[in-house]
C-alpha cells in the first residue's frame, strides 16, 4: 500500500490520533466535537494536543449530551463543514440514536438527494477492558441494520488510518468503530503517506484452504492466533477481516468458502441477530452447495451486557482457546 515505502510502527490509538491530526492540518473544514475532546484531549487521548494546535473553534468540548453531539454534527455538515463527532464510549451513543438513525441516515433519501451528510461518528467499543455493562458494548448491529449509514470497524493500525481517511472523504454518514482493547495492544506498520481503503472490501489477513474464518475487531486477532496454532497441525485457516460491516463484502467471503467449503464467523456482539447472522444467512443463500460442514457462529452470550468481575468477563468473551477448538472441530468435520 505504501507508495514511497516510508512507514512507522504505531498502535491503533496513536494511528487514529495522528491521522485525525494530519487531516485537520490538511483540511480546515474538519472540526472535532464531543465530550472531553478539548482540554482533556479525549479520555483515550485521541485528540491530545488538538486544542492547542487548532483552537476552540475546531476542537469543541460539547455539553454532556450525546443527542446534541449527533444533532449539532448534522447541522455542521449541512453547512459544509466536515465534522468528526466523538462518542466517548459506544455504550453512550444511544441518546443520539434518534438523531443518527432518523436524521443522519435518512437525510439523503428523504430529500431525494437534495441533502447529503459527510459526517464521521467515532465510537470506542468492545470488551476485555474491565468495562462491565456500560463500557464494553458492541453496538454495530443496531446501526448496520439502517440503510443510509456506513459502519466500519478496522482492526489494525494500517486499516485504521486508511479507513478513517476514507470515512472523512465519504459523502455519507459513517460510524467508525474503534475496539478499545486493540487501542494499545495492536501495533503495526503505518505508511506515512495519505491513503484510503475503500469501504466494502474485506481483507484476507491470513490465507488458507481448509476453513474460512470471518471476523473483525478484537476477535480478528484472536482468530489469527488460533489459526497460527492450527497451522502447526497442518490445518490452514483463511482468516478474513470484514473491516467494513456495511457495505459488507460478501464476494470475498463467498470466494473463500468456494475454496474451503467450511465457514465460521466470530464476533463478540450478541450472537443473536448480530453481524454473524447476516454473514451466515448470505452464505446459506448463495453458497449452500459449496458447504461441506455446518456454518459455525461464535458470538457473545444472550445476557444484557458484559459483566465486570474478571471471571465473568472471561466467560463472556470468546477466547483463543475456544475459537481454536471450534476451528479444529470444523476442519475435521
Amino acid at each position, binding site marked *: 500500500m505504501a507508495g514511497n515505502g516510508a512507514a512507522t510502527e504505531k498502535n491503533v490509538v496513536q494511528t487514529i490520533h495522528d491521522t485525525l491530526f494530519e487531516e485537520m492540518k490538511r483540511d480546515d473544514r474538519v472540526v472535532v466535537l464531543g465530550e472531553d475532546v478539548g482540554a482533556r484531549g479525549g479520555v483515550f487521548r485521541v485528540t491530545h494536543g488538538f486544542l492547542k494546535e487548532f483552537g476552540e473553534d475546531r476542537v*469543541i468540548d460539547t455539553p454532556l449530551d450525546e443527542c*446534541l453531539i449527533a*444533532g449539532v*454534527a448534522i447541522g*455542521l455538515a449541512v453547512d459544509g463543514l466536515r465534522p468528526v463527532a466523538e462518542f466517548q464510549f459506544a455504550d453512550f451513543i444511544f441518546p443520539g440514536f434518534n438523531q443518527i438513525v*432518523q436524521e443522519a441516515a435518512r437525510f439523503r433519501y428523504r430529500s*431525494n438527494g437534495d441533502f447529503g451528510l459527510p459526517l464521521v461518528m467515532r465510537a470506542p467499543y468492545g470488551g476485555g477492558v474491565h468495562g462491565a455493562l456500560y463500557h464494553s458494548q458492541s453496538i454495530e448491529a443496531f446501526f448496520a441494520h439502517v440503510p443510509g449509514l456506513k459502519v466500519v470497524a478496522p482492526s489494525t493500525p494500517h486499516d485504521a488510518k486508511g479507513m478513517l481517511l476514507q470515512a472523512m472523504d465519504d459523502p455519507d454518514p459513517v460510524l467508525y468503530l474503534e475496539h478499545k482493547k486493540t487501542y494499545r495492544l495492536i501495533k503495526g506498520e503505518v505508511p506515512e503517506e495519505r491513503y484510503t481503503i475503500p469501504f*466494502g472490501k474485506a481483507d484476507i489477513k491470513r490465507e488458507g484452504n481448509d476453513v474460512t474464518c470471518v471476523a473483525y475487531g478484537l476477535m480478528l486477532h484472536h482468530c489469527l492466533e488460533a489459526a497460527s496454532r492450527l497451522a502447526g497441525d497442518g490445518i490452514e485457516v483463511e482468516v478474513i477481516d470484514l473491516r467494513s460491516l456495511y457495505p459488507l463484502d460478501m464476494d470475498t467471503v463467498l470466494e473463500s468458502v468456494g475454496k474451503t467449503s467450511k465457514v465460521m464467523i466470530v464476533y463478540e456482539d450478541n450472537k443473536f441477530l448480530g453481524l454473524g447472522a447476516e454473514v451466515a444467512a448470505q452464505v446459506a443463500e448463495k453458497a449452500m452447495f459449496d458447504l461441506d460442514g455446518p456454518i459455525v457462529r461464535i458470538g457473545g452470550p444472550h445476557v444484557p451486557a458484559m459483566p465486570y468481575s474478571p471471571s465473568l468477563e472471561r466467560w463472556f468473551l470468546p477466547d483463543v482457546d475456544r475459537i481454536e477448538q471450534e476451528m479444529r472441530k470444523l476442519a475435521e468435520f
Partner: protein
Amino acid sequence: MAKGKDRHTELGLKEEDLIEMYRYMLTARFCDERQWGLNRMGKAPFVVPVSGHEAAQVGSAWAFERGKDVFCPYYRDLALVLVAGFTPKDVFLGLFGKADDPSSGGRQMPAHWGSSRHNIVTGSSPIATQVLHAAGVALAKKLKKEDAVVGTWFGEGGTSEGDWHGAMNMAGIHKLPLVFVCENNQYAISVHESKQVAGRVFERAKGYGMPGYEGDGNDVLESYRLTKDAVDRARAGEGPTLLELRTYRFYSHTSDDDDRTYRTKEEVEEAKRRDPIPAFETYLKTVDVLDDDKIAQMREETKTLVSEGAKEAEEADWPDPSTATRHVYADLEVE
C-alpha cells in the same frame, strides 16, 4: 373609517411589504382550504393544517434574509415555507406525493419541508430534531464568520424534547446566531399546554442564558417586530433569542386527528374571533394601504393562483418506482 395608528413604519416596513405579507397569509390560508377539500374528495390522504398560524409564520419569516439565512421549520409551517420560496404548486406537489415535490420527490408525508435552493433544511416527523440541526448550522455560520442567521420553528410540545433543551443549551453557551420561534397553539395533538409545559415557554430562555419574549402570534406586525429584533441581535453577534408566539390552530392536528375529542366547539369559535387574517385586513384598511375592493381583488387573485397550483400539481407525474432505491447513499447502489 378614521385613520388608525401606523405601527409598521417604525418597524421599517413599507406598504409593499405589508401587501406581500398579506398575500402570503392569504396564500397559506387558501392552500389550507384547498388541501382539506382535496382530502375530503379522497385525493389527498394526509393534510397538516396551518390555519390560525399565518401571522406568526409570515411575521417571523419576514425578519430573515432570504438567500442567506437558513430555515429549520416544522410540519405546521406552510406559510413560512411560502415566504422562504415555495410556490403553491410546490405545496400541492408535496401534498399529492408527486415526483417533482421539492421537499422529497414524494417520499415523505406532506408538510415535511426541505429545499437546499431555499435554505430550508430537510425535516422529519420526530419532534424537535430540527432544532439541533439549527444549532449545528448556526455554529458553522459562527465558525466560518458568516453573518447569516438561522431560524428554527416548533410548537410548545417540541419544547419537551431533549433535543430542544440541548439546542437551547448549545446556543446559549456559544452565543449562536439562532432564533428559536415557538408557535404556541396550546395543543400538542390533544395534550394541553397546562400538561405539557411547567412554567412558561419564553421564561425557559433565562435558564439557557438568552433573552426570551412572548408576543401575540395572531398579530403579524408583533410577530415581525419580535423576530426582527432577535434576528438583528443574532446578526450583530449578540447571540440567540427564544420567542413564544401565542396562537391557535383552527383545525385538528392533522386530517387523521379529531379535535372534538379534546376541545370544545365554543373554544375553537372563540379563537377564530382572533383570526389573524381579518385582523390584518382591518389594520391595512385603517392605515389606508388597502380598501375593501383591493382586498376582494387580492383574495380572488390568490384563490386563482392556489387553484392553478393545485391543478398543475394534480396533473404532474407520480414518482417512478424504479427510482425508489436512489439516493440511499451518494456512491453505493442498494438492492
